């Protein structure tokens, strides 16, 4: 028979070693796909928190405006430059409580000085006069998603519009 003339290696099926090699290749590929997916999940979850953080930043700026509308003298003037503070979301006054928003977001605010040049325009600080009626406010939202700390920042200038 012609089959007897073939070399032995052509006649037998897969050996155990071959099966094991094939199996381990398949498992390695499957493992790689799984870990890629878990990264994808992680990023998707992180993204929802980023969206929330952006609205919290936006809200932070509105909160400082509300404090300004209430009274610049009482709410804005006493706060030192470059020292971070938190605001109570019910009373709109500064608070020492570091309670996290929704259990994960920490929102801090910090004022810094703004300068005006001879024309009254806002300019680089060290060389010009410090403005008394306008301050720079920076809002930071920080949260930990179990895989590290994330921070988003927004800043704007706020003026004593109502001379209050």
């Amino acid at each position, binding site marked *: 028979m012609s089959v007897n003339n073939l070399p032995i290696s052509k006649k037998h099926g897969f050996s155990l070693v071959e099966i094991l090699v094939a199996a381990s290749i398949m498992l390695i590929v499957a493992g790689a796909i799984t870990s890629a997916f878990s990264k994808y999940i992680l990023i998707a979850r992180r993204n929802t928190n980023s969206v929330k953080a952006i609205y919290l930043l936006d809200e932070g700026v509105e909160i400082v405006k509300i404090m300004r509308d209430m009274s610049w003298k009482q709410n804005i003037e006493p706060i030192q430059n470059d020292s971070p503070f938190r605001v109570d979301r019910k009373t709109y006054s500064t608070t020492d409580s570091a309670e996290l928003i929704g259990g994960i977001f920490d929102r801090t605010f910090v004022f810094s000085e703004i300068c005006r040049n001879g024309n009254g325009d806002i300019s680089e600080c060290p060389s010009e006069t410090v403005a008394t009626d306008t301050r720079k406010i920076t809002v930071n939202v920080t949260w930990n998603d179990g895989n590290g700390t994330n921070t988003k920042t927004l800043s704007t200038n706020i003026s004593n519009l109502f001379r*209050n």
Partner: protein
Amino acid sequence: MDFHKHKLSRGFTFVETLVYIAVFTLISGALIELMFFTQSTFNKINSSEGIESSANIFLESLSRDVHDSASSTIENSQLTLYEKDGSGNIYTVEYSTTTDNMLVMSQNGYTKTMTDPETLVSNLSFTDILTPHSKALGVEVSFKNIKSDEAANNTFWATYILKGSYK
């Protein structure tokens, strides 16, 4: 025939068959596990995308309407905003939830759904904030996926000042 006497023509031994079955079971187990994992990942991503897009559509639309309005009323988590058009006529914009937990905006008899078809509102609350010079509106909204029972913490917070209320 010589062929039948050859060692390699015997087929598989019992032990070999057992090893093959074990390997096959392990691999198919891993693959089925992977399939379930892929499915649940897809569901999670799908649900968080629906929640994010609903939150964005709602809050972007609300911020524009609140900024444009001069006054507002809140009644049982239904918000009515009073805005002025180009010729100074006052018109109203309403935000509320329907009985089947969708978020809708209505204006001049025209109603628009703000939530993604697979996303429901589980909580919506508005708060008035009054200052001597302005009025602001706080909003807290929670969303959930239509299929999931999990009480996922998907709450968004925002506050907007009614620019027309400045005095």
